[in-house]
């Protein structure tokens, strides 16, 4: 799985990526300069709070979440047992990056162990 994340990180605009469980346990991470504990803590809080809030408004979680801030983006993709989290730059075209992130999620879901 590490190789799959490394491939994703080669895409222009992707700064780092990780796979973590709903409880915030890091399965694999390739985060470059980003601090693993910070990313894991924030990603897991974001996932947990979103799932609780969405359930309360009658939604069954999310397949993909795109969080956009002034200077960067985080994209979360549901892998069923875990989440793929990619941190990307703000200036890169989102549609291009999303194709790569979705393709990475597909590779992770369908990889042979």
């Amino acid at each position: 799985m590490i190789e799959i994340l490394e491939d994703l990180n080669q895409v222009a605009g992707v700064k780092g990526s990780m796979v973590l469980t709903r409880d915030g346990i890091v399965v694999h991470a390739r985060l470059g300069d980003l601090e693993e504990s910070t990313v894991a803590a924030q990603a897991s809080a974001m996932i947990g709070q979103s799932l609780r809030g969405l359930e309360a408004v009658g939604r069954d979680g999310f397949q993909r979440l795109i969080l956009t801030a002034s200077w960067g983006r985080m994209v979360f993709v549901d892998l069923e047992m875990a989440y793929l989290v990619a941190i990307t730059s703000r200036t890169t075209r989102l549609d291009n990056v999303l194709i790569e992130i979705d393709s990475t999620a597909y590779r992770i879901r369908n990889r042979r162990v």
Partner: protein
Amino acid sequence: MGLLDVFRRKSRRNHEAALVSPLAAATAVREQIQAGDLEQALDIAERGLERFPHSEAMQAAYRLLKREGLADEIAELRRKCEREDDPAALTRLAAAYRDVGEYDKALELCRRAIERFPEHDGPWYVLGRIRLDRFREEWLARDALLAIEYYEQAFDRNRTSYRALIDLAELYTKIGARRKAIRRCEAILEFAPEDERALALLQKAMTLPARGERLDLEQRVRRFAERQRHKANRRGRRADEAPPPDLALLRDPDLLYDRLHWLREHLEGFEAAIGLGGDGSVRGYCGPPSLQPAELARSLHPIFEAAFTCSLRMDMGRLRTAVFEADSGLCVLVQFGELRLALLCSPEARLDRTEAALERWIEHELYR
């Protein structure tokens, strides 16, 4: 008045019409770029950015314009950097990317330059400028602290780095760090004794209270950032000042309802839209009575808070939007100044189909 003046006045009036919303201004900038009139494009872009400093559409148009102007220089510098390892060229290329708003490319080049030429001050200076840009946009203390750190690194490597010293002196003066500001001004005056900017700054620094509160640098920066944020938030609160669009919407429930209602008319799969204050209070709602606005607010407010905190802790700046896609539909959260907007759609509303309508709503309708 000559013909040229008449033409200029007329074209400024036309620009004024383009400045009704960020989307209109950004479109006008792109049209002028296509017509090859970069001067007019710059005029609209600068006024547009002044009026809508946080608009994504406006920032993107400005970046495009800058790229247009610096395209040749960037191409030439890129060729130079590919040919040889030159710290000055790497720094200039990083600075050019910063100018066009390609901050990630600029940061990557700075890192590369620091790794290969650890004694060169240039990349540290560019890093400082990038953090200063960020600080001026959002007034987050962390950005100013990092800007200071990077400028000091540049100064450590080059004791006559005028640009780093002048930025440092200005920053120290603004945050009230009297001794540090004076020292940096004096450092400039050692090699440029008649420099007017340094002399003026020194004079200003000298007027700062010599024995004020005992605060460390971080405390001073935090206090200054807090003041600046407060100042920014006060905009439009005076009776004679037109309120910014977020405050106007927060104050006027009918106006907010009108904007939320626009989505019902224009968005496929629209279910409900709600406007919340920063404390999670309901300010406006458009949707079926079966969805209780207060219940919606109670559920959505914690997601807003988590997204807001996540953006800040991840060093990505302030939250703009969060888009949740699921089989059960789309949920979009928008932080619009002090106003928080949430939108719920049925599965019909796929992101790729609603993107244009959402952009028009955020970048045009909310500003009208």
